[in-house]
């Protein structure tokens, strides 16, 4: 309800960014990871978050997904904060480094569980469609502990997209995928990239994503060093140089 009201009011005022991060700082064991980081991702963009290992990409995505509490700063999604507004979590699809599945349950049981927690209509049907979309129907009744790394990643992608979220936070989504599965993910991301849906994808090797991404943000030493549309990459020599090094 609050979300709808905010959407209506946005018609008369400048539209808030789909993801707005303001002055975010986070330390782990007194070691600063994010330092006064500010980033705005506009609605409908596919922004690739690049940065070297330990730059804080995962931490940033986990803070936006409300899995980690920042030391200071604020995150708003379409102008609203997640704090005190748990229904807003329905807008987020998150793919992390781990699958988030129960190993003893099979794919159907795991996705049914999530579909019911998201209160989706026809949860079994939605779970079945999600499994079919990542080509795992043949293995859907096997416990997920028997899955290979690539199969788990495909199922995790299905979980992240299960509730048709408006904001997708994907952390190294190509990890463990074979060539065919990676191509299928390319197609899926191209289809998902449209007005009304915003994607923020962390990638250490972003080259394949840059062929269809709209923006690239470079996370360096805890701050966003560059944030540019992909078609203006030639203007930012430092980022271009960094991207060449990651090939």
């Amino acid at each position, binding site marked *: 309800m609050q979300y709808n009201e905010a959407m209506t009011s946005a018609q008369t005022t400048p539209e808030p960014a789909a993801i707005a991060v303001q002055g975010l700082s986070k330390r782990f064991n007194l070691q600063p990871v994010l330092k006064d980081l500010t980033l705005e991702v506009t609605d409908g963009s596919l922004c690739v978050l690049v940065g070297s290992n330990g730059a804080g990409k995962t931490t940033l995505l*986990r803070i936006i*997904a*409300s*899995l*980690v*509490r920042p030391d200071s700063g604020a995150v708003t999604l379409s102008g609203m904060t997640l704090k005190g507004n*748990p*229904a*807003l*979590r*329905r807008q*987020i699809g*998150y793919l*992390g480094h*781990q*699958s*988030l*599945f*129960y*190993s*003893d*349950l099979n794919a159907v*049981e795991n996705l049914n*569980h*999530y579909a*019911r*927690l*998201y*209160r989706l209509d026809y949860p079994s049907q939605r779970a079945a469609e999600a499994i079919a979309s990542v080509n795992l129907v043949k293995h859907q009744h096997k*416990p997920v502990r028997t899955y290979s790394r690539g199969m788990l990643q495909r199922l995790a992608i299905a*979980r992240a997209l299960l509730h048709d979220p408006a904001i997708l936070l994907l952390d190294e989504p190509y990890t463990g995928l074979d060539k065919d599965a990676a191509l299928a993910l390319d197609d899926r991301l191209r289809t998902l990239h449209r007005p009304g849906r915003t994607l923020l994808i962390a990638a250490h090797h972003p080259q394949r994503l840059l062929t269809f991404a709209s923006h690239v943000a470079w996370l360096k030493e805890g701050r966003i060093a560059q944030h540019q549309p992909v078609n203006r990459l030639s203007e930012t020599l430092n980022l271009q140089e960094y991207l060449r090094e990651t090939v």
Partner: protein
Amino acid sequence: MNGFSNYLHTLWQVFRKDLQVEWRGRQGLPVMLVFALLVVFLFNFALQLTPALQAGLASGLLWVALAFASTLGLNRSVSLERENNALDGLLLTPADRSAIFFGKTLSNLTFTTLVALVLLPVFSLFYQQNMLNPRLLLVVLLGLGAYTSLGTLLAALSIQTRTRDVLLPVLLYPLALPVLIAAVEATRGILGGQAWGELQSWILLLVACNILFLAAGLLLFDTILEE
């Protein structure tokens, strides 16, 4: 009303998932049961108690077996959510986080109560005490309710730490001491044939612990779970 039905829905889904995982994996309940029965057998044969001493010790032994078995169940409950970071999956959903706490508490209580229901007849047999007494069942339920609600809260706290395997019992046993003392005293009173009125203070302490730990879970679970 819709909010409350959503709350109950989440609680039920978490509880149902825990039962489903246990049914598929069978890694928690059998271990808890074997451990609890082992305590009963070992103490019975090792101590060679006279009937008079058995009556005095039965309440303590019962709660030692239940408390340790319950801790095993709580550890399993933690490892279940830690594996593949499944807890993050729960936290990402719009579910109320305190409903997750109540769901987890309910499943932990269910497993421990099932162990108690097997243990009580065995205790009756070995220690020649009538353990199938409705008043005793109430005390067991109240004691386990307080113990598992505190345990679930502390398990959520320990899941965020590197020393999680040892942290849970280290935190749980001292904090659960009032619960265990009240439960042992109330059990001893019931087995000794004391009137209900004489046990009232222990029963009230158990009720108070239940309310306190459930309220703590309701208020703190969200904060505890965020890194």
